[in-house]
């Protein structure tokens, strides 16, 4: 087993379902001990990629290693060392909290099952409710319970597929605290998400669209590396302004951020020209700003779309 610095190392990974290529030559590296954010629009192949990383799906092409194990041939070893949290609640709603944990512990063939379950319950703070059915828990508690179940067998890598969907902000914040606490203990975490505030909390990010990796790096790197220029506009009449700018040459994106507007484009000169007339409007104040991650990702998505449809036409 190659115990290098990479927890996940994918090279040219491809998965097809019938004629549809869901993951297209994906190459991506996740370093040990980091919290890696996996972003991309719905249907971009995030879940399929994660399933391949943990050996649930067999890749059609390319190769990959998870924790040094070959994802095609050594899925059994991977499963033993990886904790995978599915998008949907994957525990049994008709089993109690304690029964669920005990079941997972014995599936992994853990020794001292009772003691481990007790410890997990204590850490969760669910001791008093251990005989309650898992189905009766709120979204936030279900997610914490699932995480605890994933951690029972002390995995070295956590794969979390949209763990915070439908969870309230407080529970989300607690969840992320827990993720960082785990990372500080040396556990690698790959987490897919749609939330930009969560993306900002990751050490590094990978953005995929149409099954292809569009960008990869720290949030700061991504923003700096992007060729995107963004104007932030505040003041009155910005809704009318947004409509006027939408689709103007050089303007690729117009996005509302609360009371202000982000106007972005990758060609600085064209953007300058398109906005020049509006910038004279005294009701508004314009300033050049760093693009937000969201600007960047929507831009990437547009790019991916152009590439994709462009490829199709050719």
């Amino acid at each position, binding site marked *: 087993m190659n115990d290098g610095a990479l927890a996940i190392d994918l090279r040219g990974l491809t998965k097809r379902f019938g004629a549809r290529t869901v993951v297209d030559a994906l190459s991506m590296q996740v370093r040990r001990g980091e919290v890696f954010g996996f972003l991309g629009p719905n249907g971009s192949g995030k879940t399929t990629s994660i399933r391949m990383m943990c050996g*649930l799906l067999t890749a059609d092409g390319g190769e990959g290693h998870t924790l040094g194990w070959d994802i095609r041939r050594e899925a059994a070893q991977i499963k033993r060392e*990886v904790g995978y949290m599915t998008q*949907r609640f*994957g*525990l049994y709603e008709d089993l109690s909290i304690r029964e669920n944990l005990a079941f997972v512990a014995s599936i*992994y063939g853990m020794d001292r099952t009772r003691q481990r379950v007790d410890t997990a319950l204590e850490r969760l703070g669910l001791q008093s409710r251990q005989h309650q059915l898992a189905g009766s828990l709120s979204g936030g508690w279900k997610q914490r319970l699932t995480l605890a179940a994933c951690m029972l067998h002390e995995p070295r890598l956590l794969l979390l597929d949209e763990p915070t969907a439908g969870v309230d902000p407080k529970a989300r914040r607690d969840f992320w605290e827990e993720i960082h606490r785990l990372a500080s203990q040396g556990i690698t975490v790959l987490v897919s998400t749609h939330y930009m505030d969560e993306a900002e909390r990751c050490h590094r990010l990978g953005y995929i669209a149409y099954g292809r990796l569009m960008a990869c790096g720290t949030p700061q790197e991504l923003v700096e590396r992007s060729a995107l220029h963004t104007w932030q506009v505040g003041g009155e009449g910005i809704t009318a302004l947004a409509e006027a700018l939408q689709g103007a040459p050089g303007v690729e994106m117009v996005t509302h951020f609360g009371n202000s507007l982000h106007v972005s484009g990758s060609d600085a000169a064209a953007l300058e020209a398109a906005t020049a007339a509006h910038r004279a409007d005294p009701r508004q104040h314009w300033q050049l700003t760093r693009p937000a991650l969201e600007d960047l990702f929507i831009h990437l998505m547009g790019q991916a779309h152009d590439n994709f449809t462009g490829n199709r036409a050719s």
Partner: protein
Amino acid sequence: MNALNRYFSLHRLLAIIVKEFIQMRRDKLTFAMMVGIPLLQLTLFGYAINSDPKHLPAVVVAHEQSEFTRSIVAALRNTDYLDIRSATVSERDASEMLARGEVQFVLTIPPDFSRRLIRGERAQLLLEADATDPSATGNAIAALQQISGSLLRHDLRGPLAARQTAEAPFELVIHRRYNPDALASYNVIPGLVGVILTMTMIMSTALGLTREVERGTMENLLATPVRPLEVMIGKIMPYVIVGLVSMAFVLTAARWLFHVPFIGSLPLLCAVILLFIAANLVVGITVSSLARNQMQALQMTFFFFLPSILLSGFMFPFRGMPVWAQWIGEALPLTHFMRITRGVMLKGNGLAEIWPDLWPLLLFMLVMMALGLGRFRRTLD
């Protein structure tokens, strides 16, 4: 907007009706069930069900051949109740054929039949019936008894005309084998063993496996080191045990509540029950691999269960059904299992006698296994 619209609007009603039709068209299985089940029931109850089965297979054990016996056999053939095979067989062969269910009746002509008839001594013919299913033989027996009196009317001429008494010239002795009192419970309870197993086993496996997929717990389960085979066996095992327990219960009730005889070997029956459970579980697995949710699994189970219960000979005498229905029945495991349980319990059949129904059961299981397990494997990827 007028007042009526506030309480009931045709537009809104129409919107819902149209939506229902669109959904009905999308949900092909429910639609098939709505159309298919009435169709199935119509053809079955309309054509297949004949509670007065005719052309029941029969053989003759002739210890003597004379113009009288030939005349009697010909006359019995003419009743349409019996399909008498032309070759006569030995007593032993006839008995075995009856045990295997190959024939429904055996007519035995004793060696001195003609002599006794001519002398005016009470001549007797023995008609043995496989009465495990009293409804299959009841009508035939009643009809044969009635006509036996007039059978030799044309043959007793000249000096023998004196034998044409008010009483019948000979006596047709009827033995209802295996079920002398023609009790329906003797037939129904061994059949029920199979019916209960078919329903519970297929449904529980199909629902159990589909539920894991539907609720998303299967993915979680497969992400653990657990092997697909372990999941499958682990999920099925409890149901096998429940199935065996319920069988023990049914068999005990059969013995002590309904006083159904148990002549054959219990270990043999248990072995066949295990095989039958396995066959049904494989059907359940196949269903679960086809069904996308528990509702569909339930519908498919019903699709399999309905013909099983109607065409296996449980509800209606198998030989009373038209040939096409009998062919469908032969393809169903319940048909063969029911014959085996009736054979073992009521006739005391052993392995040799049940073999003709055992191999179709094995074949069914192997074919289903190839189908179901093949699909199950793929659905995991």
